[in-house]
Structures are given as structure tokens and as C-alpha cells.
């Protein structure tokens, strides 16, 4: 029976990841990129690929490290601590999981390119302000042997830098998932000026041609392929958010120990102590949900939905609390751009919305519980 404890390999993976990220992707790196107006970092992604992260969910036969979902969560969690910039969730988690459901040579080839870091993916689902894959309206009209795609997507995370797009569109009798290159004729990508200084885009599709070859899985049956991929992405994002919570919390507790007011460390004030303790309890409880989601995904990624929604719902609430307390307890300095807490707050807000907000996931759990 899988235990809700990090095993030895996971602990080692976390240690290694932390070492690399502290060095290669401290928050100051994100700050530099933000100041330079740059939202993606291909060189670092190559290094991450060399560490086996890009192929964490790619079979070994395609050159992946195939470490599994719990391991992917471990990496995402560490990335969250320093707000590391990478297409990890979009490419290595979501796209890899989707492609893996397709058992053919073409998919294996694509997986190999993901694992090597040579190709990155983004998932284009959202059309309105909220995540709602079942409600996708973008049309993929049958046209000869293929399709013509017309419509708009927004909040395509990592979309401006992605080489390829997974596009969810409506076909005659359901939803179909297309895997197309980002530079195909008719695809127009507008980078969004995101508050978290990360890559996201609004993408329009004008008479974009797609063949049967571009369809991932079966026509009208996107969810068979996409559901496990979304589950995996949501879990990794929840893990990243919990890493973010830990990062913000650690800064805050350190500050409570150092900062003096009225002659004493502010960490001696019991009201702040209890709030910090409460926040720690929340993070601890959320961590269990993250660990559980990884275990359940590794058991069967297509039925882990409730475990994943629990993780994302909890991670969202916890991260928002962590950054709110982080800013408030730091006082004025927490509000300045020169201090890192603002980056955590903005990233938490973006992550809260991506792949379904608290309410989306709470409703899934309520539905599963019968109310």
C-alpha cells in the first residue's frame, strides 16, 4: 500500500531539486526577467531537461526518466518555493501525460522531444474568464479529410513561448484535442502582460487547417486523453502553489524572528505567533492532500479526480492565505517592489485561477459527495 510519506527517492529528488533551483532559479532571476520583459528561459529549461525533469512523465523508451506523478509533484513543489520559471507543468506534465495516453509511434516521437527539452507545449482550453473545458465553444469544422479551426483562446499559460499547442475544440459530436505547431498558418499569438511576469497568451485561430494526424486520441473524445493530463497538471500546480506557500511562509517566519518593533522581536507578539502557527497548520494539512494526489495519480491517473481537486482547492486557499499573511506581517516593506513577497502574491493569484479556481474544485468534490 502506498504510504503518505515521502520515500527515499522522493526525498533525494527534492534535495537535488532544491540545490539546483536555489542556484539557478532564485526569485532574483524572475525579477531580472521581469525587469527585462522576458517571460521564458529556454536555457534553464534545457538544464532542467538534462536533470530528467522535462521527461519526468515520459517513458524510458522515449528517453524519459519516467519517475511518475508523485515525483513530478515533488519537482513542482520545489519550483514553487523560488518561483522558478519553466514550462514544466504545461509541457512535462500536461502535454506528456496527454501524449502518453496515445499509444503510437508519433506520440512516442513527440514525447521524446518533450523529454529532451527540444519542444515545449502549451494547453489552450480557456475561452472565458474561468476554466471550463466542458464548455469549450471553439469550432473545429470538418473540412475534407481534416478540420478548420476558428476561435479564440485566452490564458494559455506558456503559450507565447510554446513550440506546439494542445487545442481543445468542438467537433460534430463532442470535443476533440488537436496537437498543432504554434506557427501554423492562421494561429495568432498575443503575449499577455501578466501580473506574475510569466508567460501566458491570448491566441486566435483563423481558418487554421488541421488533419486527422493532428488529432490526439479519438475525434469527439478529447476527454479520454485530456482528463488524465488535466488531473496531472492540476496536481502539479497544486504542489507548486504549496511550495510557494512554504516559500512565502519561510520568509515571513524569518522576518518575525529578526524584525524588532517597540524594542522586541515582533515574533514575540502572541497574536502574530498564533497566526503564523495557524498558517503552518494549514500548509501542513494541504501538504497531505498534495502527497495523496500524487499517490492516487500514480495508482490510476484517470480516476484521481477527487484527490486532485482536493489538492488544488486546498492549495489555492492556503497559498492565498500565505501571501496575504506574508505581506501584512512584513508591513510596509512587504508592499515594496524591491522586496520579493509581491512576486509570491502575484504568482499565487495567477495560479489560483489556472486550471480551475477553488470553487471549481470544491464543486467537483461536492458533486462526488452527492451534494
Amino acid at each position: 500500500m502506498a504510504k503518505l510519506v515521502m520515500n527515499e527517492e522522493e526525498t533525494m529528488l527534492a534535495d537535488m531539486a532544491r540545490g539546483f533551483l536555489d542556484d539557478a532559479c532564485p526569485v532574483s532571476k524572475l525579477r531580472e526577467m521581469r525587469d527585462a520583459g522576458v517571460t521564458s528561459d529556454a536555457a534553464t529549461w534545457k538544464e532542467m531537461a538534462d536533470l530528467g525533469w522535462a521527461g519526468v512523465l515520459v517513458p524510458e523508451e522515449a528517453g524519459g526518466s519516467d519517475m511518475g506523478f508523485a515525483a513530478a509533484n515533488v519537482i513542482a513543489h520545489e519550483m514553487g518555493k523560488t518561483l522558478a520559471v519553466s514550462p514544466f507543468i504545461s509541457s512535462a506534465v500536461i502535454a506528456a501525460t496527454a501524449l502518453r495516453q496515445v499509444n503510437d509511434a508519433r506520440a512516442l516521437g513527440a514525447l521524446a522531444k518533450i523529454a529532451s527539452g527540444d519542444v515545449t507545449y502549451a494547453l489552450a482550453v480557456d475561452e472565458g474568464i474561468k476554466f471550463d473545458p466542458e464548455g469549450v465553444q471553439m469550432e473545429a469544422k470538418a473540412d475534407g479529410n481534416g478540420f478548420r479551426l476558428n476561435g479564440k483562446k485566452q490564458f494559455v499559460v506558456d503559450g507565447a513561448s510554446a513550440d506546439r499547442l494542445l487545442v481543445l475544440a468542438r467537433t460534430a459530436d463532442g470535443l476533440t484535442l488537436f496537437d498543432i505547431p504554434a506557427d501554423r498558418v492562421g494561429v495568432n499569438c498575443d503575449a499577455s502582460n501578466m501580473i506574475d511576469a510569466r508567460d501566458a497568451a491570448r491566441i486566435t485561430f483563423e481558418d487554421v487547417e488541421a488533419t486527422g494526424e493532428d488529432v490526439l486520441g479519438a475525434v469527439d473524445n478529447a476527454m479520454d486523453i485530456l482528463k488524465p493530463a488535466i488531473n496531472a497538471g492540476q496536481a502539479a500546480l497544486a504542489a507548486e502553489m504549496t511550495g510557494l506557500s512554504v516559500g512565502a511562509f519561510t520568509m515571513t517566519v524569518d522576518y518575525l524572528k529578526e524584525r524588532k518593533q517597540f524594542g522586541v522581536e515582533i515574533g514575540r507578539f502572541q497574536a502574530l505567533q498564533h497566526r503564523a502557527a495557524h498558517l503552518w497548520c494549514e500548509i501542513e494539512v494541504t501538504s497531505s492532500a498534495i502527497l495523496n494526489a500524487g499517490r492516487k495519480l500514480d495508482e490510476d491517473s484517470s480516476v484521481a479526480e477527487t484527490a486532485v481537486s482536493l489538492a488544488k482547492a486546498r492549495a489555492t486557499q492556503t497559498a492565498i492565505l500565505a501571501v496575504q499573511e506574508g505581506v501584512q506581517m512584513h508591513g510596509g516593506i512587504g508592499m515594496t517592489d524591491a522586496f520579493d513577497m509581491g512576486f509570491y502574491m502575484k504568482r499565487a493569484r495567477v495560479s489560483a485561477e489556472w486550471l480551475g479556481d477553488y470553487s471549481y474544485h470544491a464543486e467537483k468534490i461536492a458533486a462526488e459527495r452527492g451534494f
Partner: protein
Amino acid sequence: MTVNPLDAFRAELRDWLAQNCPEEMRDGLMTEESICWGGKDWVFTSDAQRVWLERCAAKGYTVPTWPVAYGGAGLSRDQEKIFHEEMGRLDARSPLQSFGIWMLGPALLHFGTHEQKLQYLPPVARGEVRWCQGYSEPGAGSDLANVQTHGEDKGDHWLVNGQKIWTSYADKADWIFALVRTDREAPKHKCISFLLLDMKGGGVETRPIKMISGVSPFCETFFTDAKIPKEQIVGEVNRGWDVAKYLLTHEREMISGGGAGLSGGGRALGAVIKDTMDEMDATLRADAMRCEVNSLAIGLTLERYKDQAEAGQGAGDASAMLKYMGTELNKQRHELMMNAGGSDALEWDGPVGNRAGDWLRTKANSIEGGTSEVMLSIVSRRVLGLPG
């Protein structure tokens, strides 16, 4: 073909339960009325309750993880999980609840001598002796180590005088384990011994305390020249605080378990919500969802801490988190159940039973066994290392 030993255990257990768990015991109830507490004066509420206890005790299933020698079934952590899953599948009632199981057992298993274990544990496992706990004293509140009850050294015994409060079900218990000051001079944490007292051995009196829920689960307990033989001590003389601290950690996890709904009570909110769906407004539903999300995550945390313990990582002070989160959740859940019940829930023993009494009872959850404030201070100082 090899069968996974855990699968084999599950199959065997499922069989046994199907054959041995009486139909009347398959309602999953965990109310004041349905619980079997055992003890010398216990009156079974039904024949089924008696039969169920006897059959479980014979297999060691009242204390499944205790060693077989002391009345348990010697189950591993994995087997224990399966045991609870299979019991849950049948909605089987717990055959026996007792402070002997929750508190005395862990204390003796960790600090007791082999003789003590043999003497005290099997009667607990069989439901023959009911224990209670004598920790708190009047006026001490959260300051548990502030023990005034005194045991005077009389050579072969201690002569105990003093008073305890919040002794749960002391009026129904046969024995009490108590913190007693056995040194008047030594500092607070080095003057206390952990003693075992026969409540019918003379010198012990109890008086129930009526609570706001209308019942009296707690008592005041008075010791007047009670004689306690020297061998009735757990651990060393004046080192009883070590035992108490160990048990406090244990107790926190246990109380939290109730809150997280791993025990039978946890199903209640979900059921109430489903029953009253039509009348449930948007706010109540949103609050209930939040509660459910937290409940599931806290339940997983309890599982995680158990798995960690099995892996040799004790929860220690972090158990304060379980106690805090679990009990606050449980209070919130009962607030929502009262809300969902509307005016039906405002009557004692009205159309929705004792819902109000259960609700009021939960208010003690965040006080007994260490207040939420004490738990947060433990986390703040000992886990986070904040000063003060």
C-alpha cells in the same frame, strides 16, 4: 500463484466480519447511546452489543494493533488500515470504546513493565475494566503541570490527597490513572508521578459536573487518604510528566481523529446535507463544501502522520496541529448541522434527535486535552521556533 498476504488478510477478515458482526451492529452509529464503554458496571444495551464485544475481544479486534499477549490482534499498520476499511464497508460499530484503550494502553505499552502490561491490558481489551483519566485540577486550566494533588510517601504506599476536575466518566469508571505530586520541593516537571488507582479501593469520591449540553460526561474527583501501593506507578517516581507528555501527544491525534471524521461521527454532515439539500441555501452549501474540503484534507493528514509514525518519524509537537485543526473543524461542522436543521434542531430530543446536545458537546473539543490556544503556542514555539 502467490496471494499477496494483505489480500489474504482482507479476505479472511471480510469473511469473519460477515459471519460475526450482528446485523444490529451494522449501523455505523457513534452516539452516546450506541457506544459500548465496558467496565464492571456495564449494562449492555442489547444482546447484539454483548455478542459483538465478546467476539471481537476473542480475536483481539477491540485493540487490533496491540500485541496478542496483551489482548490485541497484533496487526501491522497496513493490516490496521484494511481492518478499518472492512469495518467501514459493513458500517460496523466499534465494539468497544474506552480511555483504557486510547490512553492507558499507549502509556503502559511504552512505559510499563511486562508485568503491568499483563495485569492491566487484557481486562481493558475484553471490556472488563473501565478507566478514566485524572489530569486537570481546579484553577489550573491549561497549565497541566500545575499539580497540587499530593502523594505522601508511606514506605510501601503513597497516601494521596487532593482533587481532580474534568475527569471524563469518572463516576462510571473502575480505575483512574492520575498525575500526583510526589515531591513538594522539586520543580514543576520533576515532581509528578503517574499513578494507577482502584476507584473502589477506598478514599476516592466523584461528583458529576453538568455541562451546557445537559449531560455530565465530566466529574470532579476527590482523593481523601487514598492508599496506592508503590507498584502502581507507570515509569519512574517523579518522572510522570514524561508519561503525561507522551499521552498528550497521543490524545491530540485521537481527538483530532474524531474531528476529521475518521470515526463514525464524520459521516454526519454529509448525510445531513444530502437530506436537507432542497432547503439548503447558497451560503450554507458554500460553507458545507469548505468544511468537506477541509475534512478530507485533515483526514489525510491524520493518515500521513500515522504513516510517518510507522516510518519512525514521530509527530511530537506537530501533533498539536492535528488536535487544533481537527477540533476546530468538528465545531464548525456541528455549527453547520445546527444551521441545516433549522428550528427542528432547537429542541432537546426533537425531530433530529440529540443534534443540539451533540453540537454543544463539540464546544469542549477545543478546550479538553489542551486548548486551541495552547496548541497554537506549541506550534509557534516548538515547531516554528518563535521566541517567547
